[in-house]
């Protein structure tokens, strides 16, 4: 319940009580009603039609009860207290009053519960569908969309709907009913006094709209500036060692002070608005009260109305302002929800470009023969990434892919697992086109070890088991042993049960690689795709990795994006890729003996190593 937790309005008052999880949304001007979004939303609510209907009925009942009570007050005063005294009548009316309150409570409570129930189930379903969707979307989608943005669809945007459904939609109905109801009752009681009283309304509505939109902007500004404060703070706390090392404390302090001041000023701007608005509302209310008092009393004295009417009017006046304020807030809520809804449904409607064919069959257990048959491929259609690539890998062979960055090595590897669909040609596994089988049956027979292996939260054991969820603990240990991972895991504080945090950042890259090896061993795929790490790992780990690698590749058809000379030398075939084409192929020895890119690359590498070692004696000599 921190600043403005009640919503965009900073003077939430009672609203503070109902604050749900607050996401920060930056919509300022947008559509309040989007038929497409509303239609889709209604689709989700369809199964709960009865509950929605019940809610609406309850809303009407509770609004009616709220409208009734000042009128009961009038009857009590006029009929049983002032004009004639009647204790029994007074008691009856008081009991009726009490009963309306109970009915009112029951209807409000059941309406709130029914709506929350529907809302949460709808949102639950929506989140689930979104998650399934992002898992079905091909890599092309994820390549082009930042994961943070996609995530905020599921977490933040859905939460906006929650506020709309539990608070917004219902409030609109209630508030409108009450506003219309109050106005009608007042007009019915005494139209002259009613018109006089209602004359403050336009001013009131104008002021509310004026302040609400302004306050919203001011509020967003405070959120932005506190974000800046947080960012600056974060940066300097995490970089405090550098700041101290360079003795930069003074300069950093001044910069922070500037940002900090920006936040204070933004807050004061918002405060200015939030302290000015309530007095104005209060003034309008009191003005209406004064009008009722003065003209009402005059009317009473001239015998036009009774005292009870004046009291009822006074009560109605106090109930007029809350709905206006709430409507202003709901307006914003609708804007946000429409924007969020559009984003959510856009994601749900995103076409799945790489999908199982309707007639796709299960891929039978394979031998591991891989054939690229005149494959051409581009990610977006314009720039070709692979041009007419053809090669064959026999079962059990190791294929090393070498070439400069961006040559297309990773694309070849990605196409094997059908992460993308090719534009021309065919990729055949044991003679079967990969597009004619289900992706699951294809991918389950392949193993992937990415360059920077990804670890999931959970224990080390869970991470290895990822390769085959049905594996027993013994099988996991066996796989780890085979992948040279067992020793390092056993040295961890809780062994296989050690938690992996922050995506494995507490393990070195070499260690992550070893775990990924174990994962692949456990999956026991016929085809292995491996992207060797380029970053250096420490000596011991490197030795372990090389030994494990040899075992991992043994007996499988393997595609290795190779960075180690040892891997290249041991490969059955080296494919030299450049500009999306295979420019050379053969064994390491064969390639070295012919003129071409491979020899050039090799020589460059060789010279660099020589130079590094060369530098040594020279330095010593000059010192």
């Amino acid at each position, binding site marked *: 319940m921190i600043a403005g937790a009640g919503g965009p309005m900073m003077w939430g008052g009672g609203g503070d009580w109902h604050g749900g999880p607050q996401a920060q949304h930056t919509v300022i001007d947008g559509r309040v009603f989007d038929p497409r979004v509303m239609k889709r939303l209604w689709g989700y609510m369809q199964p709960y039609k009865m509950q929605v209907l019940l809610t609406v009925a309850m809303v009407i009942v509770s609004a009616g009860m709220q409208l009734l009570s000042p009128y009961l007050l009038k009857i009590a005063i006029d009929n049983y207290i002032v004009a004639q005294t009647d204790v029994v009548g007074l008691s009856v009316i008081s009991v009726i009053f009490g009963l309306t309150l109970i009915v009112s409570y029951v209807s409000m409570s059941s309406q709130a519960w029914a709506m929350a129930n529907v809302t949460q189930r709808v949102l639950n379903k929506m989140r689930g569908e979104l998650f399934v969707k992002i898992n079905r979307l091909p890599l092309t989608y994820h390549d082009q969309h930042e994961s943070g943005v996609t995530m905020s669809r*599921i977490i933040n945007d859905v939460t906006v709907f929650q506020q709309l459904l539990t608070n917004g939609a219902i409030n609109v109905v209630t508030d409108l009913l009450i506003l219309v109801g109050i106005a009608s009752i007042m007009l019915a009681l005494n139209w002259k006094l009613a018109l006089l009283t209602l004359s403050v309304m336009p001013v009131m509505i104008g002021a509310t709209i004026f302040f609400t939109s302004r306050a919203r902007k001011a509020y967003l500004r405070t959120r932005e500036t506190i974000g800046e404060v947080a960012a600056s703070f974060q*940066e300097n706390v995490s970089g405090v060692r550098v700041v101290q090392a360079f*003795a930069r404390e003074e300069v950093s302090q001044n910069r922070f002070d500037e940002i900090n001041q920006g936040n204070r000023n933004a807050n004061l701007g918002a405060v200015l608005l939030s302290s000015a608005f309530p*007095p104005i509302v209060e003034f309008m209310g009191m003005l209406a009260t*004064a009008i009722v*008092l*003065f003209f009402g009393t005059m009317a009473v004295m001239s*015998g036009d109305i009774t005292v009870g009417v004046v009291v009822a009017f006074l009560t109605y006046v106090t109930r007029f302002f809350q709905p206006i304020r709430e409507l202003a807030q709901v307006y914003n809520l609708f804007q946000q929800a429409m924007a969020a809804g559009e984003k959510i449904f856009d994601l749900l409607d995103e076409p799945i470009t790489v999908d199982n064919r309707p007639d796709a069959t299960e891929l039978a257990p394979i031998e591991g023969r891989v054939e690229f048959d005149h494959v051409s491929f581009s990610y977006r259609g314009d720039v070709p990434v692979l041009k007419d690539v053809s090669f064959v890998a026999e079962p059990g062979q190791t294929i090393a892919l070498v070439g400069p960055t961006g040559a297309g090595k990773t694309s070849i590897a990605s196409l094997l697992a059908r992460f993308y669909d090719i534009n021309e040609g065919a990729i055949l596994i044991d003679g079967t086109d990969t597009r004619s089988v289900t992706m699951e049956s294809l991918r389950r027979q392949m193993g992937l070890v990415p360059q920077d292996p990804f670890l999931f939260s959970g224990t080390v054991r869970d991470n290895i088991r990822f390769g085959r969820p049905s594996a027993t603990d013994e099988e996991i240990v066996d796989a780890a042993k085979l992948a040279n991972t067992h020793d390092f895991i056993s040295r961890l504080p809780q062994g296989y049960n050690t938690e992996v945090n922050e995506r494995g950042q507490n393990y070195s890259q070499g260690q992550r690689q070893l775990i990924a090896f174990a994962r692949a061993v456990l999956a026991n795929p016929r085809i292995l795709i491996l992207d060797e790490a380029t970053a250096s790992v420490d000596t*011991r780990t490197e030795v372990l990795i090389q030994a494990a690698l040899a075992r991992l590749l043994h007996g499988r058809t393997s595609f290795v994006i190779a960075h180690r000379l040892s891997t290249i030398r041991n490969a059955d075939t080296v494919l030299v890729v450049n500009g999306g084409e295979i420019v050379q192929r053969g064994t390491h020895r064969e390639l070295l003996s012919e003129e071409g890119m491979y020899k050039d690359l090799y020589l460059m590498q060789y010279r660099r190593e020589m130079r590094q070692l060369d*530098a040594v004696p020279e330095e010593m000599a000059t010192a």
Partner: protein
Amino acid sequence: MGTTLRLLSYLKKYWITASIAYVCLLIGTGIDLYVPQLLRSVIDCAVRGQGGAVKTTCASTPDPLELVRNAALLIVGLTVMKGLFTFGQTYLAEYGAQSTAYDIRNELYRHLQRLSFSWHDRAQSGGLMARATSDVEQLRNFTGRGFLQLAQVICMTVGITVILVVTNWKLALISLLIVPVFLRVTTFYTRTIRPQFRQIQQELSVLAAIVQENLAGNKVVKAFAREPEQIEKFEQQNDYLLNQYLKQARVTSRVNPLMDVLGNFGTVAVLWMGGWLIITGDLTVGQLVAFNTYLLLIIRPVRRLGFLIAQASQANAAADRIFEILDAPVSVEDKPGALPLPPISGHVQFDHVTLSYYGGEKVLDDVTFDAQPGQIVALLGATGSGKTSIVNLVPRFYDVTGGRVLIDGHDVREVQLNSLRTQVGIVLQDTTLFTGTVRDNIAFGVPHATDEHVIAMAKAARAHDFIAGFPEGYDTLVGERGVTLSGGQKQRIAIARALLLDPRILILDDFTSAVDTETEALIREALDVLMRGRTTLVIAQRVSTVLSAHKIVVLERGEIAGMGTHEELLETNPIYAEIYRLQLMDETVKELFHGEELALVGSLSGGNGQHAGNGHDDQREGALNGRSGNGHGRNGRNGR
């Protein structure tokens, strides 16, 4: 209590503002309490005008209409005044609170920057962030609005109770009964809802973590076709979240309407009993209306009371957390009267240095060595052997537990920190860059450096080429809103940054772990330039680095296990030999490869006319091969 007092002491600076705010509050409350009295008199006069049978408080002045008019005008007038006071009260209180928040944040920041490395080692940066943002916000909310509202609740409750009791104590007793009921409900509400709310937040963040992980590991999930397991995991949490939400809804749907309705029950009580009292002549209609108005007036603040109490305890807890940081002692700071370190030549001495962090085990034990001006000293040893601890002692990031660290004969603890650190350049393993332009980052240690100077250093650090490749060159923004730099690029900017200081002493932490081999080569090139003519302490992961050192210090478990040149150590130091052997295995592939195909390469490069054509290089090759041959020989003898 101590915390609250201390918190209030921050408001002292703004005591005038605060006092005015509270005066405004008192006057505003007074007006609030007076207005229903006007209502009463007007209604009573209306009743008299209607000519009912009941008693009224309307004075039998000649013209009751005039009284009504005056009352109506007075209400409008008072409301205008009240508006001004309300505005003044909230704005001024917020002003004080905002300024306090600003002051506390600055103070936090200043203190955090002064706290030593050993403090930061143990602190979690996420936690510190929360101190500066959400904790300070909580304080601000309470010192501003919260405190004021609390005062208002008290004034209102006391004032209204007195007025009601004076008007009619029987009716007062009955109608005020709802106040304790209200308190009970709100405290219940705050107590149940708050933990539920927190629970939901937590479940939501678990859900977010699942999504985030799924997105980040998307390729792996797809590759192993593990979508079903991922979806199951998500659905499980999703359902759990649903249940938490429903649990909360169950409470709110029961309690929220109750709070809306409770006040009206007060009205019913007032109506029934008040009506009776009117009939018996103990009360007037005007008083009844006033009673009801007072009741409505008191409900809002009482409703907030439960919330305010919760807010106060949160603010107190937040303040405790903040003060804990502000009270953390700065362990590394200038001695009183410390003199600036004069320009140094770069002689570094460790004299029987012992170090233990936070009173734990010794991480350095009796370490003694020295680095002459211009020498390169390589520190070698396993992870945790104390390499990083040694280099951190030179710019006095930590204080030694025993012994001394001397620079040109000055104990580092005796000189001003600033003068020491500006003469020591350090390239850390973690190359934090700061939001701003590339130029700003290179000029980090020397903010007024000229552009030429910055560019020259970038060139020396082999960073100029890629910087010039950016559309905005040196004005390119880095950090969150700017370009994303690769590890190697960051590393080179960090080197340029250190180079610009033109330090006599240079410290290089292990930097190669984060970059690929190609970048490593570039960085090495840059470093060769950087080290020239400076005293350099370098933490080495690879033997090739070590070979370039004048002196190698081999560390094991915080002690020096050997010292000397590569050749000396290889002869005499088994630990060094072991490290060297392991390192050698790494390069065996390449070395073997070279040996095997040297002839081929020779002929190839001969054709190229550059490599072999250089006699100097030929010699070098000979030396290299000789050395590795030597290494193998040793291996052979050691072979198990």
